[in-house]
């Protein structure tokens, strides 16, 4: 009996069928041609130009941040080049009331969502004022513990649902992050409560040095959503239109009360993991690097916009100059922030200091006055 039943099962086939369904969603190909007109989100000319401007701006921000780090004028920094479409086009699909829970590489999204750049620089420098989120800016500081933001996003989304808000929680991690327990717990909780969350896994191929193939036997990260019973999709993460459309679609479903979505954006990080000594030549080849650079989001979006007569070199130069100027201003403002003191930190531990902190406050007040 048992043997007969077993022959009727074909779990391998089930897996194969599921995996085959996860084709990569693309709208704008590497050459800058629309290959999926039906799915084109039809952004207005103004919106297309704005999205392009943000991507150019953010590429400059990345370059400047790297050189400021090398000069010792910035601290912790996780490079973002190669991930502009994944980061910025997903944020572009949001409304102001949507809440972002970023990983540490996701500083651009929270800056475009309203966190002043000088504060992002203070975060990099290790100053608590960098994490003081201004009123009305719906973001959380960048998360350091991989994946922790995923389950918190389920909580923010559930809270929004309970408050009857027409808004979503959106969170980001990487291919490595999708291996953490928190990742599974996050998508599962949000699925169980059908709460309005959008989970983005930016699959940039390497978790520091560990290649995506070593993270999981699953063919795609998106298919992990199946186990949580939530819709999921693999998107060309270097195609801004595909990322925008997928995020917009997920957001709308969430607002309609249809629960969360998992989006895997397939992309690449051109730079090192962080600026703290990672050397990608130890684990990646230059052939791999250049193969991915051919898919660059800025290159294809520039071609597309130029074809529509919406973009040219002059416009790009204007954006670049604006970015450089604003970065300079933001650094100046960060420089002007008062030197962080231990006494400042003592006073943000509790609403009221217990005896030990009171005593230590006195000790460090004296120490820091010298």
């Amino acid at each position: 009996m048992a043997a007969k039943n077993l022959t009727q099962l074909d779990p391998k086939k089930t897996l194969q069928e599921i995996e085959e369904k996860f084709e990569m969603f693309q709208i704008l190909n590497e050459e800058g041609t629309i290959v999926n007109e039906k799915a084109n989100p039809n952004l207005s000319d103004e919106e297309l130009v704005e999205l392009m401007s943000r991507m150019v701006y953010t590429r400059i921000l990345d370059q400047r941040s790297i050189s400021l780090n090398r000069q010792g004028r910035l601290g912790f920094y996780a490079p973002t080049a190669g991930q502009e479409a994944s980061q910025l086009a997903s944020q572009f699909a949001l409304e102001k009331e949507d809440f972002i829970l970023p990983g540490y590489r996701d500083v651009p999204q929270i800056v475009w969502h309203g966190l002043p750049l000088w504060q992002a620089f203070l975060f990099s420098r290790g100053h608590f004022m960098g994490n003081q989120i201004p009123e009305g800016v719906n973001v959380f500081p960048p998360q350091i513990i991989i994946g922790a933001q995923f389950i918190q996003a389920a909580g923010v989304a559930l809270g929004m649902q309970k408050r009857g808000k027409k808004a979503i929680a959106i969170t980001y991690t990487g291919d490595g992050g999708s291996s953490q327990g928190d990742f599974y717990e996050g998508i599962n909780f949000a699925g169980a409560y059908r709460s309005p969350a959008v989970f983005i896994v930016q699959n940039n191929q390497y978790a520091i040095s560990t290649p995506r193939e070593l993270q999981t036997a699953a063919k795609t990260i998106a298919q992990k959503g199946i186990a949580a019973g939530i819709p999921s999709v693999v998107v060309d993460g270097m195609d801004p239109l595909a990322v925008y459309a997928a995020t917009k679609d997920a957001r709308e479903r969430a607002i309609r009360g249809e629960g969360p979505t998992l989006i895997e954006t397939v992309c690449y990080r051109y730079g090192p993991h962080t600026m703290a000594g990672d050397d990608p030549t130890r684990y990646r080849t230059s052939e791999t690097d250049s193969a991915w650079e051919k898919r660059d989001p800025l290159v294809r979006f520039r071609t597309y916009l130029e074809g529509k007569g919406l973009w040219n070199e002059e416009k790009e130069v204007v954006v670049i100059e604006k970015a450089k100027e604003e970065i300079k201003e933001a650094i100046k403002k960060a420089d002007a922030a008062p030197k962080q003191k231990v006494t400042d930190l003592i006073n943000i531990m509790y609403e009221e200091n217990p005896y030990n902190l009171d005593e230590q406050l006195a000790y460090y007040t004296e120490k820091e006055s010298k």
Partner: protein
Amino acid sequence: MAQLTMIQAITEALRTELKNDENVLVFGEDVGVNGGVFRATEGLQKEFGEDRVFDTPLAESGIGGLAVGLALQGFRPVPEIQFFGFVYEVMDSISGQLSRMRFRTGGSFNAPVTIRSPFGGGVHTPEMHADSLELLMTSTPGVKVVIPSTPYDAKGLLISAIRDNDPVIYLEHMKLYRSFRGEVPEEEYTIPLGKADVKREGTDLTIISYGAMVHESLKAAEELEKEGHSVEVVDLRTIQPLDIETIIASVEKTGRAMVVQEAQKQAGIAANVVAEITERAILSLEAPVLRVAAPDTVYPFSQAETVWLPGVKDIVETAKKVLTF
């Protein structure tokens, strides 16, 4: 004798035990091709193969659980937690599972696991990288906790830890990785767990410390020497179990003691040492046993860490209070 940094001494110890015992397995995030983010496992995958030295998916709790399971199959796992600030993700595997293996199976299983992990302040890391969280481990019965302060100790202690048949948490202070070199014999040697080391002899005051603070304490002892005070510095090396014999012998000799730790003051290792001294040697004491520790905040955002971390000045100041009581 070779002059090695602490990180080189650690690599040497791993190589020695990978050679000595085929059951030793080294694994963790980026320990393979990349040789670890600090290069502690540099070259080991190449030398011993992917079966013995391998990368894991990114999940600290997975790494801890894997170690438990491999131990059940008779292996001697030496996993790395990339930064000890990530230990919260693996607390159940360590404090809920690994530490209880011998106990809850009535001795039928044991867990010869050594978890290595970098920690410690002063190197401007982002949040959750530099915290001194050793007290989470010392409040876990069933594990031993080792923190070396020199390259020589690092090698001998790590070999002992790997050979130990109970779980050992082996914590490596990041600031000590490459800040100085020390003599490290090429041949294998062990330093027993649970044995402190008198790093400097003295007669007027005992400073008990561990990790990076041993070096601050030694500097403070030199300063105090200039003012005519003879200070003994005891390096605990193993903070669980404590070497009560060495601590008490020193305190009975000097009659005055203080404890220096990098961690926050509340509920720390220092408090435990003070309690042991007062319980066992109160009649030898000429003064209260004082502590130097960091303030009871979360580990600071990096801009404030140099003031936050205990230093020579704090130690000298407190030492004078003890000496003049």
